[in-house]
């Protein structure tokens, strides 16, 4: 499914979309598929599949640990497509990835395999449009969405040029900090969203260390999508018992889905 379809639906419902993030291969390959299914079943509108990387400079401790575990268990890039293929169809599946893994796989080949698996697009935390010529071409060739980031420190000029390169939605990194960093009531986030809207009609997703329904509701009041990662990963980090992790994830997703619907 294309990202735009999901947003068309949530816009029609007059609410924000819930975006759930999980690294492929975590807690295991099979269970990452299972977990994504759980998120979809419990109200996630869009899925971000993380591609575990050895040097994730945008991620906080929770996601670092999850990626580390997947890599230690032998996770390979090609397996991300198995995950995508297994979960695609119902909601848009995007991959969140550090750039070296794509470049190494071959940007064109990656785009082709990803598209073939039913993927919707890439979120690229360490790739700015200025460096993205190859990806712009490959994503056009394979009709994939490309989600670049904007940040509170971005100039209006940069916001304009970044959103111009985006397709699907825009990722507003609304806290100056890594994933999982939390700021109870952010004034930066709504402001960034507002500044970004001045330059685009694309939906704007906001990641802000959201952990519960209330926070999801708050973010949903100004963002088009509420992106949740560390809290989801946390369901499996605090326990070795995967089924109970699945249980917690189902509950969390339900709560978050309620939040974006308030």
């Amino acid at each position, binding site marked *: 499914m294309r990202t735009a379809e999901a947003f068309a639906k949530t816009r029609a419902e007059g609410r924000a979309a819930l975006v759930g993030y999980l690294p492929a291969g975590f807690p295991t390959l099979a269970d990452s598929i299972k977990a994504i299914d759980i998120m979809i079943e419990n109200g996630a509108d869009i899925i971000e599949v993380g591609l575990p990387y050895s040097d994730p*400079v945008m991620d*906080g401790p929770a996601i670092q640990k999850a990626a580390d575990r997947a890599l230690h268990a032998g996770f390979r890039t090609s397996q991300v497509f198995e995950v995508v293929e297994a979960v695609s169809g119902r909601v848009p599946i995007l991959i969140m990835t550090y750039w070296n893994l794509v470049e*190494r796989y071959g940007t064109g080949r990656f785009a082709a395999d990803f598209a073939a698996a039913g993927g919707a697009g890439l979120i690229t935390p360490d790739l700015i449009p*200025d460096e993205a010529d190859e990806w712009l071409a490959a994503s056009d060739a394979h009709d994939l969405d490309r989600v670049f980031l904007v940040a*509170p*420190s971005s100039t209006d000029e940069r916001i304009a040029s*970044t959103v111009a390169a985006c397709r699907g939605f825009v990722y507003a990194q609304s806290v100056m900090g*890594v994933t999982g960093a939390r700021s109870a009531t952010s004034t930066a986030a709504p402001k960034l969203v507002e500044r970004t809207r001045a330059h685009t009609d694309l939906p704007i997703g906001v990641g802000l260390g959201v952990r519960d329904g209330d926070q999801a509701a708050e973010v949903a009041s100004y963002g088009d999508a509420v992106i949740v990662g560390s809290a989801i990963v946390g369901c499996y980090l605090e326990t070795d018992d995967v089924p109970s992790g699945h249980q917690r994830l189902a509950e969390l997703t339900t709560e978050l889905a309620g939040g974006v619907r308030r």
Partner: protein
Amino acid sequence: MPQPDLTGHWGEFGGRFVPEALIAALEELDIAHRKALEDPEFQAELAALGRDYGNLPSPMYRADRLSEAAGVEIWLKREDLNHTGAHKIRNVLGQALLTKRMGKTRVIAETGAGQHGVAAATAATYMGLECTVYMGEEDTRRQALNVARMRLLGAEVVPVTTGSRTLKDAMNEALREWVASVDHTHYLIGSVGGPHPFPMVVRDYCRGIGDEARAQLLDKTGRLPDAVAACVGGGSNAMGAFTAFLDDDVKLYGFEAGGDGYETGRHAATITAGEIGVLHGARTYVLQDEDGQTIESHSISAGLDYPGVGPEHAHLAATGRAAYEPVTDAEAMAALEKLARTEGIICAIESAHALAGALRLAEDKTLEPGSLVLVNLSGRGDKDMGTVVDYFGFDKGNDQ
């Protein structure tokens, strides 16, 4: 001065592969640095600082005994005599002064063995800046004395417990922390790596090595060297040594850490054995596996033990302007001993790689007999004596 293009590329290398959140700070740094370069007042202040505090220019020394044995004329650029014991003081003084100019009050730094951390803490203290140093937890244990040095200098040392708990993870952590503190904090990076403009900034502050050496050699010998040799970890001392000679008919050699030997896979010979990729914000050569996951590097020299390399080196290698070769642990330690026994100089193990490489070039006649070789002795060996004791077994009884 050879510059990257406006977005920080040398050919296909370099660039900015970082979160958008950092772009503004990188732009600010780029502009501040370029302006500072052209500001005579800033340059004068930095020069005075280097002279009065850093002990610059470092002496240029003809190593007669070593030369005689090698059959080539070896000149050593004595960066081991700088304040804090390595070329690194050049970089940190420049960046710390720039930090003040930008109105920031704090620096953060990554460090492996602690050399850059100590240098950064020194410059920060001197300039009255707060300083936090990220260091792999594994390294804080192995290099407890450098941790003590940084603390003595008033810096906060944060042990990094993620990933392999070594330099590359410390660098990740510094980048993460920088995103959160970028409004008042400068990331005082330790080598010519990272996103643009860092490779350029660090090079510009280290290039005094080569600029001084060029003038000193012309003054003392009336000629330029036939070759320049430097070790390459991230590549700051090598870029510092090379830059002045890029447009000359002078061969440039970068010696990477060959560890147990290139063929064993246990090494840090990034250009020799790595492949092009993106690491820590720049496209360059990277030690990586088939998927692009970073591979841990290995070297007896902590300062060279890094799986990436500055993008300008990648460019010099790709264009053939400079040659990069691995030097094994064993070759480096033999050169370190030779230098101690012939010239009475105990250099850093990093620097011993440069010397070992130069001696090899002389021995295999890549350099014609009588050639004039400039070897950058990037640092002193005090920090390495524990390794030396273990390596040579000097703790085993009293006989040699």
